[in-house]
């Protein structure tokens, strides 16, 4: 097992290097000039050239790449071209809200979606199953920002229960932290609850036709035990896979949610950096996202044997 983990970790290195080089090259080939953004719309060509020189953007691309890689090897992601702030610090500042949003969303999703999926499978073809599946189609089809606006309208504007926007760290107290998190988590969870409930239902229905379920029932096990101990455990692998994919796709999901609820997270930072062509920030973020993707996949792979002992590494 340990050897497998080490092998997988080592395999991430070439992937990260490739991502770094490709992102670096793509950014330089994309139209856009950070100097033009810094100087403002009415800058002359001479002023732009001066700024490019001062930031080293006039150097050949390969020289800029070598310089960046040399910095990376020392653990330095560089500084933002616009604000002059270290990229590592910017990512650190923005990591909290995104992490909290992602973890809360996945937790809420698992807590709600799996029981819903199991219930739907248990009552397959009946009214409850149809109701759950109709709701899941709704949750799956309505864009996150629409759900976000509806929640804000209802709970913030009409009821006055919760703030419209913003983020407070836990260090400011649990109340301010939680009240700003409820609506974004609900909005972002909807789609994942719908997705995971559907996958759970179909996985369990598939397992329910297996011989061992019939054997369990023949042995006199009650329906609850059949569902939870026999069916759910055996259906766990596809569910776990989809949760892993969901966590990875949350990285893109948070962009919209962070904008609608004004959360100062990584999603917003990506959009801002791309629009401003802030190369070091984009590069740093994409490296971080690649690393997160790889780590989530690794974690999911390592969890498989927990649910299915037939899988060994």
């Amino acid at each position: 097992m340990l050897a497998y983990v080490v092998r997988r970790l080592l395999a991430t290195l070439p992937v990260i290097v490739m991502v770094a080089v490709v992102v670096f090259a793509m950014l330089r080939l994309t139209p856009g000039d950070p100097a033009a953004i810094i100087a403002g719309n009415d800058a002359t060509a001479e002023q732009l050239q001066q700024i490019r020189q001062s930031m080293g953007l006039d150097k050949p691309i390969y020289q800029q790449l070598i310089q960046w890689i040399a910095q990376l090897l020392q653990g330095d992601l560089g500084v933002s071209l616009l604000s002059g702030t270290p990229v590592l610090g910017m990512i650190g500042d923005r990591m909290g809200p995104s992490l909290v949003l992602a973890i809360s969303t996945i937790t809420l999703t698992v807590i709600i979606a799996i029981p819903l999926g199991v219930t739907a499978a248990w009552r397959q073809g009946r009214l409850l199953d149809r109701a759950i599946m109709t709701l899941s189609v709704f949750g799956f089809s309505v864009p996150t920002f629409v759900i976000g606006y509806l929640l804000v309208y209802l709970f913030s504007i009409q009821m006055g229960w919760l703030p419209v926007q913003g983020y407070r760290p836990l260090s400011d107290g649990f109340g301010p932290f939680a009240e700003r998190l409820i609506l974004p988590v609900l909005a972002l969870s909807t789609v994942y609850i719908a997705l995971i409930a559907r996958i759970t239902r179909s996985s369990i229905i598939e397992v329910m036709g297996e011989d061992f379920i019939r054997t369990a029932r023949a042995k006199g096990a009650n329906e609850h035990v059949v569902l939870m101990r026999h069916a759910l455990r055996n259906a766990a692998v596809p569910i776990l896979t989809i949760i892993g994919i969901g966590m990875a796709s949350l990285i893109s999901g948070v962009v919209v949610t962070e904008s609608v609820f004004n959360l100062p997270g990584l999603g917003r930072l990506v959009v801002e950096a791309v629009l401003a062509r802030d190369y070091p920030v984009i590069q740093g973020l994409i490296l971080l996202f690649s690393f997160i993707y790889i780590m989530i996949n690794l974690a999911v792979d390592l969890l498989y044997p927990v649910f299915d002992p037939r899988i060994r590494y």
Partner: protein
Amino acid sequence: MSYNFLARRYATAFTFKIALSTAYLFAGSASAQTITAVMQSGLRVMDPVVSTAFMTRDHGYMIYDTLLGIDSNFEIRPQMAERWEVSADQKTYTFILRDGLKWHDSAPVKSEDAVASIKRWAEKDSTGQVLMTLVSEIKVLDDKSFQIVLKEPTSLLLDGLAKLSSRPAFIMPKRIAETPSSESIKEFIGSGPFKFVASEFKPGLKVVYEKNKDYVPRAEPANWTAGGKVVNVDRVQWVSMPDQMTAVNALQNGEVDFIQQVPFDLLPMVEANSDVKVEVLDKLGNWTYYRFNHLHPPFNNELLRQAAMHAVGQDDVLKALVGNPKYYKPCPAIFGCDTPYASSYGQDVVVPSNIEKAKELLKEANYDGTPVIVLHPTDLAMVSVQPVVIASALRKAGFKVDLKTMDWQTVVTQQGNQKPASEGGWDIFSTYSTLATSGNPFGNTTVAANGTKAWAGWPDVPEIEALRLEFARATDPTERKGITDKIQKLAIDKGVVGPLGQFTVPAAYSRKLSGILPSPITVFWNIEKAGK
């Protein structure tokens, strides 16, 4: 809605709030009186000499002060300067600093600081660069006074030092002002009415200012950037919100106090709220315009530029961009209507859409069907509509048009490309600017007409360049107005710039705020807030 229902609803809300906010009670810290403002974008570039971004400029007015200010009658007034004296030959200006000026680190402001700041500003600024060709010497006389000696009389000196926008001449400590003008400053200490709180700065997200308790405001009432900058609150925090709908909801919910610019489509929401006031603070407003590429066909042909200008109608653009006539006005003046250099020349050319006239000119110019590449940014509401209306008008007149869709930052990069359209260049792009920036021949970058050295579009009209120099040397207001009228005529006749009309963008704020000053720059002095 019954009383019982309401009572139940608010009782539930109250219970919910109590449950969530227990930590507030235990924290028990008294919060300072703070204005939370949603600005048009996040502050990222902090150096007001390096960047002309509006946010950078507004940040500059918070923490720095200017030697001179300007009021709503376009009169130049002393600000950091107690007064200035002019020699009989109008070539020597002596500036005397006010008593009590201090930097945010408590060091006194000295005349050497002002001299270093003016020199750095003049290296970058369009007015400053011309001004320096007319300056023979800038010298420190003592800690409180300095002298600027001119080679010949000019009004540009006072105009430049009182410049409202697009690189005002902010005064910084000498050690900071000695940073090369091509590099951004790293320390943000001014002598202005607010102090920058570095520990709370989140680039692009939030910037916090606290009241500068050592600031000594002038005695006169505040008026634009002149007069007493009296701060009545402890803190001002600017936040950026990528989604304007969220900003409007937050204002309605009392989470923010002020929105600098409310999008036109969301105005009905805030106008319907009795707790919110909607007001145009920048009454000078903005002008929108388009530029031709003078270097390559088809618009290296003056007749075709004229044809395009006849085809495009300002009403069509303004209706699509703004919608509500309360906030827009057709205007042919390249220095803006309701400004000292307003002009009606070109009214018949640029205001109505005259497709028949455009067709005649197209025929006369023997237009060969060369496609017109129009750059079309889609990510910014203020600039995304104009290209579509322009393209439609040009097509009606008989032009072949290729609308190229891209994001705004790509437009900004593309607009500097002097190559022909076949090699990635362009023929038309449009944008907008504030009239605080564009109200004279030096602030208005579109009238520079020195060919490939000019701003994007590169018109080559030596007569305009000569007139700009004449303007720099003129000291009589009537003479200056005459010169700008001539520039207006040339700019329209030669198709240097195509004005698309003027508009204002209202701000919205909580009625808890009072004393908000109308000004082309959003200023936070003079404002009082009821409650925290």
